[in-house]
């Protein structure tokens, strides 16, 4: 197979492990590196959006465009850091923060009604009209005590999703 990119040394592995707060084991990092090299076809050191989209299962995911903005052009260290949120050892706060970042795609620090609409649009496509989406969102927001005009902050997300928590776990296959 032999990619042009250098092999991982023990130092590299430890550096990556530290960067992701030890949420990923060393074996998993080696496995992820193989995967990274497989996706990064010309050994540029990062995976381009096109290469992510060449994974059919990823390309047909409704949120692929939003996620692409977060993973496009990441080097290996940040790639592992991104995936570390999906580890079973990651805290609930970290996972909720990831969700928040997906909604708050332009990193304003708050999630507006428009952001909520956008994600709902990605998830429902042409099977719900824009009015239906606005109606549904306004309705559930009101019921939870928020108005259409107020923006949600991370604390709000924690409050809403905190109990009974989220299940976002992906296992890294280790040979």
């Amino acid at each position, binding site marked *: 197979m032999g990619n042009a990119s250098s092999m991982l040394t023990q130092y590299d592995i430890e550096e990556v492990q530290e960067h992701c707060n030890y949420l990923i084991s060393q074996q998993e990092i080696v496995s992820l590196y193989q995967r990274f090299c497989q996706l990064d076809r010309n050994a540029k050191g990062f995976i381009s959006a096109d290469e*992510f989209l060449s994974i059919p299962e990823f390309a047909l995911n409704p949120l692929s465009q939003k996620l692409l903005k977060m993973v496009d052009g990441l080097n290996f260290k940040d790639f592992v850091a991104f995936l570390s949120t999906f580890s079973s050892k990651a805290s609930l706060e970290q996972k909720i923060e*990831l*969700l928040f970042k997906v909604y708050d795609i332009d990193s304003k620090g708050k999630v507006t009604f428009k952001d909520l609409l956008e994600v709902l649009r990605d998830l429902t*496509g042409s099977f719900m009209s824009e009015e239906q989406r606005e109606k549904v969102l306004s309705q*559930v927001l009101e019921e939870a005590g928020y108005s259409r005009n107020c923006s949600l902050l991370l604390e709000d997300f924690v409050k809403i999703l905190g109990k009974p928590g989220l299940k976002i776990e992906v296992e890294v296959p280790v040979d």
Partner: protein
Amino acid sequence: MVGLRSSSSEMDLDRPNIEEYLTTDSIEESPKKLHLRDLLDISPTLTEAAGAIVDDSFTRCFKSNPPEPWNWNVYLFPLWCLGVIIRYGILFPLRVAVLTAGWLVFFAAFIPAHFLLTAHNKWRRKIERKLVEMICSVFVASWTGVVKYHGPRPSMRPQQVFVANHTSMIDFIILEQMTAFAVIMQKHPGWVGFIQKTILEGVGCIWFNRTESKDREVVARKLREHIQGADNNPLLIFPEGTCVNNHYTVMFKKGAFELGCAVCPVAIKYNKIFVDAFWNSKKQSFTMHLFHLMTSWAVVCDVWYLEPQYIRPGETPIEFAERVRDMISVRAGLRKVPWDGYLKYFRPSPKLTERKQQIFAESVLQRLEEK
């Protein structure tokens, strides 16, 4: 199934249910009242996406696993070095010599036959057939091919096609040395294209072009014409449409299965013990691939000619294709994945994403009704 080309509607009706293979959305079975957290909680979708980034069944089909290095030892390493010297210094030149001699004999007989006899002369066809079989045997000898054939050899009669799983272009050579098949191939550039044009025209070849959308109908017509002729060589088709790493099979294209004739499955399994015969066309040119084979010890494989299959009443061509793929996968010990091989070159159809969106939208609307 194609992404960038305009998709024809017939493929939707016949598609096997992909949802059975993909992870199902965790939609609650009993509709409950809709709360804010239900709309905010996008975890199933995120998990699926991250799961696909970490490992996915499609990319696995094209991964060539490097063999375990066995030369890591003080005394094994010199042995390995000796092996390298023998392979590159002795075997390779010998093989090149054999190959060159073979080509010279081939051309010495082919050129006169091709130019002196008319195109439909029976003798010319017989000679060209035998010559193609011979040059393929020379190729196989040049990689020290050890091929074990099981089952009845293909016979030359009309109304039949042969289908096989595809690992590399050498599949064709290995099968061709036993029987002069006519083949349907993608036009290649370079010296391979030259060989395709001049020599394979003699055994009867049909060309297709992946990127041409109208191509499919033209090719289907040519296929039909070919199998009618009693004098034509038996037709060999690789329905996967692309090279796969010999551990998995991707979905078979239905073109070969809607011709209304017998389909004879052929299963090919390579033994990776001496060399991995998978041709990763994105990573290697065919010349490099041949070089890699010619500097290895041997190419070992098994070929099984399986029982001819006919389409059953009430079976769609796609179901027929899947049934035959099942037979071949079981025989060769390959795992099936529900992906179209052309996804290597094209994006998946947006219809699949729309299906997911539809499921989610309907669930939301349904729960909205619940009070």
